[in-house]
């Protein structure tokens, strides 16, 4: 006979207080346990110093920075275009989305972010959503594997492999794509790419459904993560969470809807929102976001100006020789283009003095670039607002009151990546 075990106190802080009260007459001392930085569940190099009372966490102190490379310092010392490869290495599970975010940030400074050619916008949306599916697949696969459901991980990695193949034929690289350029993208969709993408979308939907049957109503899975690490709406906003973690807590905020950029206005998609803000909600939100991304990509492939193989020669870059490199044939035959190419390569894209912030809805949350320019081809200051960094800052708030074995589940549900957190 199956019984359903409910956790009576939903709020983790109140649960700690209750648990501590019930433990008061037992003598003992607290133990400090060091988790990470090299721990399979920390998905990179996150260190958490846990203070334990028995199996109960009473205090958690995250320690980040093991992967710090000084990207912001590097950005101050190179042209805007030269920094594109570094954005691949921020959230290395969704490099295409980072490329799009960075390009849009610099284009906003240039004032051309809403004048991009339509075909470029559609290609970028396809890229960003492919990256979202890829990132969520890995996040969920790793989350499920940490909970013991290894099959899901194998399923998701089969699908991710197909996304990598698509990236490879699109950008020439599987991981370090560096696909976007300031003012456009590095190349058009290759022939036959749209058909491959269509095929992938059909297959991934089948696989998402299969994952769903493995997890969503799985007793072990649900019992393990439901009502775990509840983040209230207020806390989510107060701690600046973004992306699926914010929406999992019931805040209907998505930059694609609330501050539409690219062609998201013309596309039909829904925002998944959680009800209670526990780990299970965050899981459900990511599951639904993948479906919505599939929906967005198939709309884009249908509506993309010029069609799949661009017979009508729609432009993919802005028509401005001072921003986008001219075609090579013209460089070799025309003086003006030669000068443009020379200036772009040696000096960089000449940006006006000023400051802009652009936030992009990345798979992990809001990836923002604050660019402060004094004019010229190199930023004076570039601040990267990385979603993982901000999302992790809530750990000291939600960990106390959970069991030691729950840490793995909570970290999996927060879905962070340290390359981006530490920059």
């Amino acid at each position: 006979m199956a019984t359903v075990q409910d956790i009576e106190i939903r709020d983790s802080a109140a649960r700690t207080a209750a648990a501590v009260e019930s433990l008061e007459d037992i003598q003992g001392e607290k133990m400090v346990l060091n988790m990470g930085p090299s721990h399979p569940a920390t998905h990179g190099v996150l260190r958490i110093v846990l203070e334990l009372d028995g199996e109960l966490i009473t205090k958690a102190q995250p320690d980040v920075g093991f992967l710090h490379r000084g990207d912001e310092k590097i950005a101050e010392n190179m042209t805007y275009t030269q920094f594109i490869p570094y954005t691949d290495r921020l959230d290395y599970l969704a490099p295409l989305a980072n490329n799009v975010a960075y390009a849009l940030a610099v284009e906003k400074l240039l004032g051309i972010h809403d004048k991009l050619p339509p075909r470029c916008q559609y290609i970028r949306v396809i890229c960003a959503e492919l990256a979202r599916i890829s990132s969520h697949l890995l996040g969920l696969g790793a989350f499920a594997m940490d909970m013991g459901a290894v099959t899901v991980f194998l399923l998701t990695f089969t699908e991710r492999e197909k996304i990598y193949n698509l990236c490879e034929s699109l950008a020439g690289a599987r991981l370090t794509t560096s696909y976007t350029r300031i003012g456009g993208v590095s190349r058009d969709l290759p022939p036959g790419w749209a058909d491959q993408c269509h095929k992938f979308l059909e297959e991934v939907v089948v696989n998402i459904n299969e994952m769903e049957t493995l997890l969503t109503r799985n007793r072990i899975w649900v019992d393990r993560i439901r009502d775990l690490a509840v983040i209230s709406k207020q806390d989510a906003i107060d701690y600046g969470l973004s992306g699926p973690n914010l929406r999992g807590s019931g805040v209907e905020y998505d930059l694609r809807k609330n501050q539409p950029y690219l062609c998201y206005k013309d596309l039909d998609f829904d925002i998944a929102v959680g009800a209670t803000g526990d780990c299970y909600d965050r899981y459900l939100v990511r599951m639904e976001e993948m479906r919505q991304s599939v929906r967005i990509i198939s709309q884009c492939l249908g509506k993309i100006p010029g069609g799949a193989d661009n017979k009508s020669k729609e432009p993919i870059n802005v028509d401005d020789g001072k921003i986008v490199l001219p075609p090579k044939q013209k460089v070799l035959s025309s003086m003006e283009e030669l000068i443009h190419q020379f200036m772009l390569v040696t000096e960089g894209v000449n940006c006006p003095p000023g400051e802009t912030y652009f936030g992009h809805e990345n798979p992990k949350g809001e990836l923002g670039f604050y660019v402060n320019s004094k004019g010229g081809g190199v930023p004076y200051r570039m601040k990267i607002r990385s979603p993982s960094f901000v999302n992790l800052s809530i750990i000291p708030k939600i960990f106390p009151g959970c069991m030691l074995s729950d840490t793995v589940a909570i970290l999996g549900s927060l879905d962070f990546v340290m390359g981006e957190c530490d920059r």
Partner: protein
Amino acid sequence: MLNLDLANQIKAKFGDLISEPAEFRGEVTVKIADAEKIVEVCEFAKAKLGFIYLVDISSIDNYGEDPRWTVVYHLRAIVNGAEIRLKTDVSEEKSELPTVLGVWATANWHEREIYDMMGIRFSGHPDLRRILMWEGYPYFPLRKDFPLAGKPTNVPDVAFTKVTPLEGGPFVTLPSSDDAIAREPRVRVPENAEPGISDKRLVGNQLK
């Protein structure tokens, strides 16, 4: 227009403390003349104008200018999507301004990062430690006078600060015979290295 309206409301409330709102690419920036008043302005923006979401705090090093530091706050209202940027200058001698941790909890890590990277302190912050660099690191790497290549520092309490026993040696577990070291293709003997065990043995082999 919404952003500008809200900026003007802040201006109306605080008067001369707030600069005339500047608009660039649809983003509105106001400058707060006195960094000590940042908390009051933030509290007002959060409570009265609905800026309940702090997107980011960043810092700028205006090297060679006075005041040297600028701290930049990005505020957002979730409901109507309004955004505003608050800026305030801090002099190099002072290098300190009040924390806004009481207004938004997310300021905690942002302020720690600014302290770590720029060396600007936040008074009233309960846990102002380095966050990306390690505890005890002597420099502030995002300052403009810090070189891109970095500066050599000692890393306290980690391995590889002393000479390792196998330094320069052949990286094989068990040399099987006398000439095993000479046969080992990976062996590297620095030209003017102090003669160590591996060198002597190598020389011995060549003499044979």
